[in-house]
């Protein structure tokens, strides 16, 4: 079956029940998408499938046939990063950094759907993404900064 990752055409003929997470990490060697719980509980593995945030640990390879998958590695274009990536750096969001690929992917899909979210909208959209280091208030601020147009995409 065929699908795309970050614009690149992929064909896959392995086990259709393999979670996309392990395809990305082990077979495609794209480790930006993180393994946190394997059970849809933490959001570390969040990617976009046709623009929608999904948990790649809960998404079978069968499910991605014919879709466009975007991972953290493909969120920006080359050196030009997504506004959220810049905002994350400006606000020094990451502590250990491990959850942040998933946080950024989730936030990007929130803003794509709802460019001006309320604080409650942010809480609701981001609730599935755990940050054990506790960077939540900086995540909120970064999403706000981008929604308010204070921070734009660019180079880092």
């Amino acid at each position, binding site marked *: 079956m065929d699908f795309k990752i970050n614009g690149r055409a992929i064909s896959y003929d392995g*086990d259709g029940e*393999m*979670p996309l997470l*392990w395809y990305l*990490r*082990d*077979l495609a*060697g*794209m*480790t*930006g*998408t*993180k*393994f*946190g*719980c*394997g*059970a849809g*509980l*933490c959001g*570390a593995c969040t990617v976009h499938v046709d623009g929608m945030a999904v948990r790649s640990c809960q998404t079978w390879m069968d499910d991605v046939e014919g879709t466009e998958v975007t*991972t*953290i*590695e493909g969120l*920006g274009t080359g050196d030009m*990063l997504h506004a959220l*990536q*810049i905002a*994350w*750096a400006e606000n*020094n969001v*990451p*502590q*250990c*950094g*491990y*959850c*942040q*690929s998933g946080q*950024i992917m989730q936030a990007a899909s929130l803003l794509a759907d709802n460019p001006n979210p309320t604080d409650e909208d*942010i*809480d*609701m959209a*981001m*609730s*599935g*993404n*755990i*940050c*054990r*280091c*506790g*960077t*939540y*208030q*900086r*995540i*909120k601020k970064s999403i706000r900064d981008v929604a308010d147009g204070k921070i734009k995409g660019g180079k*880092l």
Partner: protein
Amino acid sequence: MTHMVENVSRRGVLKGAGIIGGLVLTAPLVSKGLMAAIKKASGQLEASNYLSISEDGTVNIYIHRVEMGQGSRTGLPQIIADELDADWSRINFVAAFGDQKFGDQNTDGSTSIRKFYDTFRHAGAAARMMLEQAAAEKWGVSADQVMAKEHRIHNKATGKSADYSEFVAAAAELPVPDATKVSYKAKADRRYIGKSVRNIYMKDFVTGSSQFGQDVRREGMLYAVAKRPPVVGGKLTGYNKEAAMAVKGVVDVVELPVFEKPIMFKPLGGLAVLATNTYAAKKGLEAAAPEFEAGDNGGYDTAEYEKILWQAIDGEDVNHLKRGDVDTALANAVTVVEADYFVPHLHHAPMEPPAATAEWQGDTLRMWVCCQDPQSVQDTVAPYVGLKPVQIHVEATLLGGAFGRKSKPDFAAEAAILAKHAGKPVKMVWTREDDMQHSYYHTISAQRVKGALDVDGRVTAWKHKTAFPSIFEIFDPRTEGPVAMEMGLGLLDIPFETPNLQVDAGKARGHVRIGWMRSVTNIQHAFALGSFVDELAHAGGKRTDDMWLELIGSDRMIDPAKDGADYSNYGETLDRHPVDTARLKAVLKKAVEMSGYGKEMPKGHGLGISVHRSFVTYVANVVEVVVGDDGRLSVPRAWVAADCGLAVNPDRVKAQMEGAVVFGTSIALHGEITAKDGRIEQSNFDGYPVCRIEESPHVEVAILETTGVPGGVGEPGVPPVAPAITNAIFAATGNRIRRLPIGHQMTA
């Protein structure tokens, strides 16, 4: 501490890092007391094990501590770069591998900055002076005629300047000035110390290119997952190898060596499946359906064990501190207040489950591990693979959180054993279930506190007893409950001036692996202390902040030895890091000022306060809670005042305090690991919830910088959080929570 720097032969680290030519300074290896070293090697300036300067002027900083979110790999280089007056963009940050020459690499106990500040500062300053001297000689002027600034040496008289690279070769021929001859920069001239320099890994973090232990990939690597005995000390009894091998991608099924006490950091045994990807390995392991017998600890049941802890509280007292005569004071008191507190087992649950990769290269073993201490990986792995520790080359990858779990490298030994067996590189992948069920748990504890109040509501006696299985039992199975070091985390430096004070421990034995978790036994001790001050305040008709100030009393330095305590002060002398009551009071007052503590609150709202010194840093917390009519609890805001002495990177100090509040809120609201039939009942974030975005308070942090000596930062923010929350609940509702987690106690 003495600072000595002397000539030694050039170190392997530089060859390993591929750096040829330049200047290298070796400063003393504080923790293990090794000597510093320098070598004039092929023109490279070696100022320290931690610093060399290449001939092109590139500054190589060897960061021997790991990065797990606390910011050490940015903060440590800031110290050298500042004294060296280096250009940040010309620094080559080298993550050092495990080697005794770096001294203590165990990134634990909030020690990286506080233990290595002097060493790193000396290295930077010594190298700067050597460059200045080389320049002075070249220009034929005296050393005080030149000055280093922004990677250049300036001639004060002529205004002429030249890049550091011009002087590296000559500087490398000079002796390294010792600590008595080194001059440090004035505070006003600092460029990096005290500045919020951005994390050196930032771009990698936001683009997904950073490499954590789980992310390591090697050519031809196999992926391993394992099922370990669910009860500590249990054994594998059977499994279906054929079924596992029939799964596509499975390469081998391997029995791990049988575990034997003492616990130490040894792997637990069990069954591993090797495959070409993690998914296949997991499927294979499921098909193998390994079975286990329980062994000695099969009867462990935390609900039953709690009763044993209360018996220990009622039973024999092991005294750790005694001042005055508490029993007489209690007998003569106008009011006696008594309360029991309970804190369950807790788990670190770092976002990244443990992982380790091992690859044999001839007779040596290379490893990439998300470990807190690469030297401890060497020591733990060596006996399992028939090597000496020095034959194991360990790189600490980035750590996706750790909180103490990853200083126990049982998982690394598994990877090494399997790589040896397979003859191929192996990555040992722990799943979240493995992480939850095979941790080194925070201990389980019971405490009883008694206070005597006189007619004015003044506290005349404080009697405190704690009982919990000790961490040290994992090293020495004869250990029967709290040891002095664990008592010292919160109870032997109780900062109260009350004339009668007594601290006792009760005996207890462990039945799971007990380990240290962010702030360790301060967690339960600060919970009892902070709660009981609030209880006494209410009993005495006072505000809780006033009760704290009254209990703490005069400005003074406390020496617990005077009351017979064996107090270790987080490995610091009391001269360098005194227990200073003035600093404790100052953070308390600051938190009150920031939060408006004491003001009228709307119905259902409450403010709670607590303060605690740990890891030689002082932290006060005020927390606001809101309790709905149905008992639903939320924690919208928190205020933190922290005095960690010098804050090398203020933004990271703030971030650690923000994160500590969230970590502490998770402990207070949800944290509970339980065991039944010796098995841990929680297996993922559904059974062991941690705070999510909507549950996490917005935190405001103030840093009070009162000294020039840095204290700990990663841990001390945690202890005061839980009591501040439960005190706030009391303020809002009159409902006193004495056992954690709060869980359903509000709605039950």
